[in-house]
C-alpha cells in the first residue's frame, strides 16, 4: 500500500504561538488520485497546504513525499522535488506576460548557468527555445491560446488568471499539483471547464492532484478521496459517498442541530453537501 502513496504526512502539528492550527493530522495522497481537503473556514486547510509546500515548518510530524522527507525544506526545494501549487488569492506575476509567467514556472527545470547565459552558448539558446515552446504548449493546454500569451497577466480575465496559475504550476513539472480553491469566484460555466481541466491533468499527464475546495459539487464530482478537517483536526476521510453520509462532517458543516434532527435533518444536510 505504502508504495502507492505519493505523499504521506504523519502526526502533523502546527502551532502559531498558543494557537494550534493543525493538530496531529495523518494524511495520505494515493499516487495518481484526485484527493480533496475540505472543511469549514478556519479549519486549517491552507495551513496544511503551506506546510506541504514549505512555506511553514510543521511544529512536529513528518511529511514524506515520493520516499523523501520534505518537512522543513525551503519552498523552492519542495517545488524542485516535484510539488507545484496555486494560491487561494491569485498570485501571478502581475506585470509579466502570460508566457513569461509560465517561463518562470520552468525556472527550476532549466539549467543555464551564469557563465552559460553571458556566453549565450548553443546549449543555453536551445534550452531557451525549448522553454518558450513548452510554455506556449502549456498555455494552449490550459485553454489560453496564442493570442493571450503576450498579455500582461493582470490584464487577463479572472477565469484566465486561474488557468494561467495552473499552467505556471504545471511548468514546474510536478508529480503532485496542489490547487488552493481553484474555482473560487467562478461562474458555473467556468467551474465546469476548470473541473474538466483538473481531470484532464490527472488522466493525460498522470499528475496527482490535491484540491482544497468549497464548492461541494466540484469536490464530490471529481475526488476519489476526501479528507475533512475541522478545528485543525481530521474528522473524516474516505470516498465521496462515505463523506456525504458522515455524521461528523454534516455536523461540522451545518451545526449540531442539523445532525441531531434525525433522518430529515440528515437528508437536508446531505443535499447541502451534494449541491
Amino acid at each position, binding site marked *: 500500500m505504502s508504495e502507492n502513496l505519493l505523499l504521506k504526512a504523519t502526526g502533523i502539528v502546527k502551532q502559531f504561538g498558543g494557537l494550534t492550527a493543525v493538530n496531529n493530522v495523518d494524511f495520505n495522497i494515493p499516487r495518481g488520485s484526485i484527493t480533496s481537503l475540505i472543511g469549514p473556514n478556519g479549519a486549517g486547510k491552507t495551513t496544511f497546504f503551506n506546510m506541504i*509546500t514549505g512555506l511553514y515548518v510543521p511544529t512536529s510530524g513528518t511529511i514524506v513525499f515520493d520516499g523523501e522527507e520534505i518537512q522543513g525544506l525551503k519552498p*523552492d526545494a519542495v517545488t524542485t522535488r516535484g510539488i507545484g501549487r496555486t494560491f487561494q488569492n491569485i*498570485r501571478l506575476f502581475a506585470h509579466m506576460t502570460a*508566457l513569461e509567467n509560465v517561463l*518562470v514556472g520552468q525556472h527550476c527545470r*532549466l539549467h543555464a548557468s551564469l557563465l552559460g547565459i553571458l556566453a549565450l552558448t548553443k546549449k543555453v539558446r536551445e534550452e*531557451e*527555445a525549448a522553454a518558450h515552446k513548452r510554455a506556449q504548449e502549456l498555455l494552449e493546454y490550459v485553454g489560453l491560446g496564442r493570442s493571450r500569451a503576450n498579455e500582461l497577466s493582470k490584464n487577463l480575465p479572472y477565469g484566465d488568471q486561474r488557468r494561467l496559475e495552473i499552467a505556471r504550476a504545471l511548468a514546474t513539472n510536478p508529480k503532485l499539483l496542489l490547487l488552493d480553491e481553484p474555482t473560487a469566484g467562478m461562474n458555473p460555466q467556468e467551474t465546469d471547464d476548470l473541473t474538466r481541466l483538473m481531470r484532464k491533468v490527472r488522466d493525460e499527464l498522470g499528475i496527482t492532484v490535491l484540491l482544497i475546495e468549497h464548492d461541494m459539487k466540484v469536490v464530490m464530482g471529481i475526488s476519489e478521496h476526501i479528507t475533512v478537517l475541522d478545528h485543525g483536526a481530521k474528522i473524516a476521510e474516505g470516498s465521496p459517498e462515505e463523506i456525504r453520509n458522515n455524521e461528523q462532517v454534516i455536523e461540522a458543516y451545518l451545526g449540531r442541530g442539523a445532525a441531531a434532527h434525525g433522518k430529515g435533518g440528515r437528508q437536508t444536510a446531505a443535499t447541502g453537501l451534494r449541491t
Partner: protein
Amino acid sequence: MNPRIRAGLAGGIFGALITLISVDQVVYLAGMLAGTTAGMMVAYMEPQKKWLDGLRQGIQAGLLGGLFIVIAKLLRAILINPLIGDSTDLGGQFMLGLNGLVIATIISAIFAVIATLPRPQDLIGRYAMVAILTLIYPWIDQYFQYRFMGEVIPVLVFVLMALGLNIVVGYAGLLDLGYAAFFAIGAYATAMVASPHFGISLSFWLVIWIAAAVAAIFGVILGAPTLPLRGDYLAIVTLGFGEIVPIAATNLDTFSLSILGFKVIDNINLTGGPKGINPINRPYLPGIGAFQSSQPIPWYYLILIIMIFSIFFILRLRNSRLGRAWTAMREDELAAEAMGINIVKTKLLAFSMGATFSGFAGAFYGSYISAIFPESFRFEVSVMLLCMVILGGMGNIPGVILGGLLIQFADRLFLPQLSNMMQSIISSPQVQLPSSLSFLHELSFASDFRLLLFGITLVVMMLLRPEGLIPSERQRMELHADEEPVVEQQQTEVYTARNQETV
C-alpha cells in the same frame, strides 16, 4: 496636442536652453540634440508607414525645434551678449541660429525616415544613427573647440554605473541606497594593484577584471546580511554600507590586525587615508602608448567600448532565466519561491552582477583621474545614481542611459555654464545691482542650486511621469493602464514583437 508640435517643442526647448547659455559654436551641438530628440519623439508618437510621410513629419518637427534655437540665439544676442561682452552682431548670430535650425531639421528628418523602415531595420537604423553621432562626437568637439570631452568622459562613467544599479533596483527590485560603495571598492582595488602605493603595477587590461571581480565578491558579502530584509529595511541597511565603505577607506591608513594576541598585520597603510592613493597607472595600448589626461579621445572610446560591452551582457542577463527570476522576485517574492526560484541565490546574483559593472566603472575612473579619495564616493553619489535610474525609467536600458546623460550633463556642463554666465552678467558694468541683491555675487549657481534643482526635478517627475522618461513597457502599462487604450494596444504589439525576437 499634435505629436509634431510636441516633439518639436521638446527638441526646441532642449536646444534653446543649451543655445541660451552657450557661446556661438555650441549652436551646432544644440541643433544635433534638438534634431535627435524631435525626430525620435515624433516617429515614436506618430508612427508612419511611408517614408515620405516620415520625411514630412521629421522636417516639420525639426523645423519647429530649430526655430526655438534661432529665437534663443537672437535673444542671447540682444539681451545677454551686450552684458557679458560677447558678439552683438545680430546678422551673424541669426546666421548661426539658422545653421542650428538646418542641422536640427536634417537630423530630425533622418530619424523620422529611418523609423518608417520595417522592423527590425528601423531599430538597427536608429541605433546606427545614434552610434554614428556618438562616434564622431570627439571630432565635432575638436573642430568647434568645445572642450567638453573632459566632462563627457566622467558622465559616461556615471551612466555605466547607473546601468549596473538598474540591475539591482530596476530588474530585481532591491532598493539600494549605497551603490557608490561598489564604485569605491572597484576604484580602490584598481589603486592597490596598479600604483606605486604597494609597488604593484599590473596592466590596466588585467586590473579592470580584478576590480570587477572584487566588486562582485563584495556585492555578495554586502548583499548577504540584507537577504531577510525587504523594502524600507533593505534600503536602510544598504544606506549603512554606503556610509561604511568611504569611512573605512578614510580610516584604513593605519591598519593592524591581531589574532589571539599575535600581530598578523601591523600598521599597514591600506587606503592612503583621506589623501587617497595616487598616481594610478594609466592604460597602455601599443600604437597609442599610455593614455594621457591631455588626450581625451582614447579615454572616450575606451569607456564607450566598456559601456557597449556592458549593455550587451546586461541584455543577455535580462533575457535569460536569471533575468526572469529577478523580475518574478520583484513582483512577488513568495510566489517566486513557490515556483522553485532560490531567493538567496537570485538576490545575491543581482547584487553581485550590479556590483560588477560598478567595478568596471571604478577601475576606469581610478585610472582616468589617476587618483582616488574617499570623498569621491559619498552618499550623494549613490543618490544621484538612483535619480538617474528613476528619471530615465527604471528597468529600461535606453531610459537609464537618457536619465544618466540628462542629470550628469546638467550637473557637469549646463549648471556650471549657467552659473558662469550669471556671474558675468552680475559683475558686468552695465548691471547696477541694488545693494539688497549684492548677496548674488557670492552665490555660485552650480554648487548652491544643484541639489535644489535635482529635488525639484524629482518631485515634478514623480507627479507627472512617475514611470520615467522612457519607461519599460511593463512600468508604463502599470501606471497608465486606464489611459489611451489605443496606444496600449500598440505597445502590446511592440512587446509581442520584442518577445518574438528573443525567441
